[in-house]
């Protein structure tokens, strides 16, 4: 669980009966996220608090995965990734989907990153047998790693 505490920090009733709500959600690192909204008068504020905590949890996970994929598509095997809010399995799964539709430099860089994974990680990420992993390495990942090396070492005149 990324969000470890959620409280309603401010609740001011407005002239029309609605409420100005400020929620504070805190993650496991102590970072506070503020959720500010105007609630209808009869809303269940605690239910809304819990629902937003769950949504924020998912957003933090997705944001980290997206940032990781962005780094991989730019830097390949040299990408710096994080797993503070997401798991390795979630990232591999998302990277698999990204690789499926990637093209040109992005495909090369993702391939370069995947080439740096172990066979066991690739078998899990792609739901492949060892033989299929070997084929993937030969046909896609190793050429991508070579191409990425060429790209990284290329300079203009």
């Amino acid at each position, binding site marked *: 669980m990324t969000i470890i505490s959620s409280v309603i920090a*401010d609740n001011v009733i407005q002239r*029309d009966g609605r409420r100005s709500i*400020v929620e504070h959600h805190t993650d496991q690192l102590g970072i506070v996220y503020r959720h500010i909204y105007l*609630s209808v008068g009869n809303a269940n504020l605690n239910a809304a608090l819990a629902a937003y905590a769950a*949504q*924020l949890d998912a957003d933090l996970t997705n944001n980290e995965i997206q940032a990781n994929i962005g780094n991989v598509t730019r830097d390949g095997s040299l990408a710096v990734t994080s797993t503070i809010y997401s798991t390795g399995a979630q990232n591999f799964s998302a990277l698999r989907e*990204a690789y499926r539709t990637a093209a040109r430099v992005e495909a090369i860089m993702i391939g370069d990153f995947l080439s740096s994974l172990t066979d066991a990680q690739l078998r899990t990420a792609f739901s492949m047998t060892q033989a299929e992993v070997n084929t993937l390495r030969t046909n896609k990942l190793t050429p991508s790693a070579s191409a990425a090396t060429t790209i990284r070492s290329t300079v203009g005149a």
Partner: protein
Amino acid sequence: MANVYVRSAATGAGTGADWANAYTTLAAAFAAKAAGDDFWVSEDHAETQASAMTLTPPGTAASPNRVICVNHAGSVPPVSADLRTTATVTTTGAFAITLGAGYAYFRGITLSGGSGAVPAGISASGDGALVFDTCKLITPGTTGASSKMRLGTFAAAQKSKTELRNTTVQFGATADTLTVNGDFIWKNTPNAIAGATLPTTLFTTNAVSTSITGVAFLEGVDLSALASGKTLFSSTGTSKRYMVKDCKLGASVTISATITGQGGLEVDLINCDSGDTNYRTERYRYEGTQTTETTIVRTGGASDGTTPISWKIVTGNSTRYMPYECLPITIWNETVGNPVTLTVEGIWGGGAVPNNSDIWMDVEYLGTSGFPLGIFATNGPADPLDAGSALASSSETWGGSTTKFKMSVTVTPTKKGPITIYVKAALASSTFYIDPKVVVS
């Protein structure tokens, strides 16, 4: 400029020269024709394919295409009375519709990308400009996907403009999102979110491909289908500014997701609400949030004529060097050559009056001669290392909170014209209320 006819039921030569010999697909018509051509799409056009579809209008910036749904039994070429809104272009299965680089105006056409348990959708990409007028954009696939509907270029070093006029969007899964890149404009659209399946978050940046910065402007768009539990705007690593004006919102909807850094997601909301109001104005930034308050207000302060208001500022990650900046307050000044003192009243619950390094105001005014160069004055700290000092206390009457204060700046304008006040809040994790009705003396 040629007239090109498109009708899926046509059985002629497929030259596009007339209805009898119309192209049966829009893609074939686009591929064969040229910039500036007009594509007349029959009202009974129902183009469907179970494979990826790429529609690349041949139009250029100087000679865009028109792609308009009309009654094929009407005048040739069509006239106003022939306009229709019933043509459909559809992909089924795991196949998306891609609108390639080009310049075109679409009217009365429904684009539906993908079907079944798939994440495929609609992607309008590439360098160009596309206008959708009285169209429907649908991604029926029931497998949710971020950026399932993606409008505007997502390639670096490209420009794009996408405009939706009276055009609705519809999604097949709650996890679907709409990503807009480059310049995006959405105007004059009732019931803008169609269908029964509503996205949890409407706008996001790209999930995978590069997101391109830009400005999104929404005006006169009914977003009320998205209510409690839904979020309008979210963003990750890309700068994106949304300006939302005169739009209808859903009750209790979250306007902005958590913003992760300066220059990331930025949302300005101007007169948008779910209720019958005309004063709800908000600004969302990483540094803090400004909303409209109707209870903790200053007696004799700002009002829409009926309801008194103040601005509630909740700071998050603000610092003295990167403070939260409120929406600007602009007044018209007629005084020239004499001092004008501008005062903004405020209140907070922090105990003693705040320091001028906690909250202050910058004033931009016309203080030069020979050119209209703005001059800035401030009641904030004199320099970055100035310790700051307590603001003046105030005896005004407020409807809540505890400690009243006021901020004043005196300037000497050299021209008549606008004076703009920027209230800036620096103290993190604080709540201030300020009255946007500036007292001029």
